[in-house]
């Protein structure tokens, strides 16, 4: 255990506070989405961000990347986007009269990748992201390239205008640790947005943490102790989704892992050195909402996935 790690652990609450302050200089409101985005980064998972257009999804990701000093890239997904457009390709380069192959990395070679409107990309392109998301590596031709750490994909999708889109397959959805919703701002928040963005200068952010510190914080987040009782609660919660009335397909064991890992990250973010029941309760929604498939009958009745999660939590007394 190095002294550096001890120092980072000691400074962690201060780091998180400054990160929030910096993000708040740019973002107005969206506290839940910001918190969950930071949880996803700390837990080392990927997030699917769903909101209507114009709610600052891109701005949030860009701001997070800047404050953490991380490399950022954006992929605007369209139906004609090819896998090589994401992973990169091998090109022939001529230098000093000789030709040789050189790998040109694609936008996936960044620390934070924003895959905007991912459901507009073809399934072939969507699946190209699978290896990157799960293995944190990219294979082009017969060579495999490791991605830089930390690596975090934030995909956005628009809940409206579903024509010409390719809904993400369940296997790919399961690979996203969290599904984050962004809501419309309140009257006061929208007024503050106007104040902040209608002038000559737009707010900027400063880097508050280095890439190495982010990696160290991710490691420390995994070390946050969880009681056996809460682990059992997490498993019970996930298993309950598999036999709940109105749920056609429940969450996989990956959801149990995600629930504990993200609860640890949230506890760390909140300045606690242990996971509490509240962490489990709060994280249950973004962890489970994209992992359960409602039955036709439940959808016909207007039941939402978040309502199902609420019902299960209430049933289990969590």
């Amino acid at each position, binding site marked *: 255990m190095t002294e550096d790690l*001890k120092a980072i652990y000691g400074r962690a609450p201060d780091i998180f506070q400054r990160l929030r302050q910096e993000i708040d200089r740019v973002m107005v409101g969206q506290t839940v989405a910001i918190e969950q985005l930071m949880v996803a980064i700390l837990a080392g998972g990927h997030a699917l961000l769903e909101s209507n257009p114009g709610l600052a999804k891109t701005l949030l990701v860009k701001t997070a990347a800047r404050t953490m000093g991380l490399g950022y890239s954006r992929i605007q997904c369209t139906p004609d986007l090819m896998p090589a457009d994401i992973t990169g390709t091998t090109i022939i380069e001529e230098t000093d009269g000789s030709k040789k192959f050189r790998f040109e990395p694609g936008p996936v070679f960044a620390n934070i990748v924003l895959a905007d409107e991912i459901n507009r990309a073809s399934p072939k392109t969507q699946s190209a992201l699978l290896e990157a998301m799960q293995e944190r590596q990219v294979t082009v031709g017969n060579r495999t390239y490791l991605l830089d750490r930390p690596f975090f994909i934030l995909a956005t999708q628009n809940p409206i205008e579903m024509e010409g889109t390719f809904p993400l397959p369940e296997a790919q959805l399961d690979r996203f640790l969290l599904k984050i919703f962004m809501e419309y701002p309140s009257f006061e928040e929208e007024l503050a947005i106007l104040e902040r963005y209608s002038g000559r200068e737009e707010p900027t952010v400063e880097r508050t943490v280095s890439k190495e510190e982010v990696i160290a914080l991710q490691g420390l987040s995994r*070390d946050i*102790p969880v*009681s*056996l*009782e809460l682990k059992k609660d997490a498993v019970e919660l996930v298993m309950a989704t598999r036999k709940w009335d109105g749920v056609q397909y429940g969450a996989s064991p990956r959801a149990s892992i995600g629930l504990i890992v993200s609860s640890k990250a949230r506890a760390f973010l909140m300045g606690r*050195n*242990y996971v509490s029941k509240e962490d489990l309760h709060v994280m249950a929604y973004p962890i489970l909402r994209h992992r359960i498939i409602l039955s036709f009958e439940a959808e016909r009745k207007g039941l939402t996935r978040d309502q199902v999660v609420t019902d299960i939590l209430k049933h289990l007394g969590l």
Partner: protein
Amino acid sequence: MDSPYEFLVYLKKIKVAHHRFEILIWILNGIIISLLVYAFALYIGLPAFTRFYWQDFLPLAVSPAILSVLIGIIAASLLRRRRSSDLFGLFDPELREKARAAYDNRRARSLPMQSLAAEVRANLAKIRPSRVLDWRQVKIRMALLVLLGGATTILAYSQISADITPSDFQSIADLRDRALDIFANQTAEKKVEVNLSGNIYGKPSLAVLNEEKLEIVLYPGMAAGSRAKATEPTERLFKPSPPGDASAVPAELYIESLPPQNKEIIKKYFENLAKG
């Protein structure tokens, strides 16, 4: 004593105190339930019954008390098993979660675990084991114990079960006889149907002897015998012989002197009396 993992020592101290407390609760529960059962036994007159019938055999004579203690022990043990004996439940919600997480991860040596262990140690060091125990539970049980003890004493010295006579156990005797009848009916091959229903004990009965009617009341129990009601003197059934001249004389069989229509009923009556 500088290790943050010293919280385990504090936790152990509280665990020992909690264990003792649980035993105390178990003993109190056992006594309360025993008293309750014994008070009920007193109320229905069971101790008087057993003393009456088994006065020569002490273990059976005091069997209601022994039974009450046994029921108390078993019930208290079952209650103890059902009570969730959660050590962490003694702490306030925040410390409960911290202590539980720290205890479950006591083998981990990470930075967050070390800091958590130090926090839990600091919190537990301030706690006196006896202070976290819920002494209200003991007080309630003590009060209940005093009340029940008083009630039992009153029952034991009151007249509620003092005037117990064998006829008070008629229902018990009825049950026993019914059971015996069922057994007898199962084992014996088709017996002659006798118009003898119900119980013969404790009721005024009529025995006919040599055309003499004898009103008797029979009571259950071995050697309890019967108590005849005083009637007019009857002629003896034996013939006197002169002194010094003892010789066998033919005697009329008792059964032969009975009215034939009542032979079966009287036979059954004596059979039952013999089974007593």
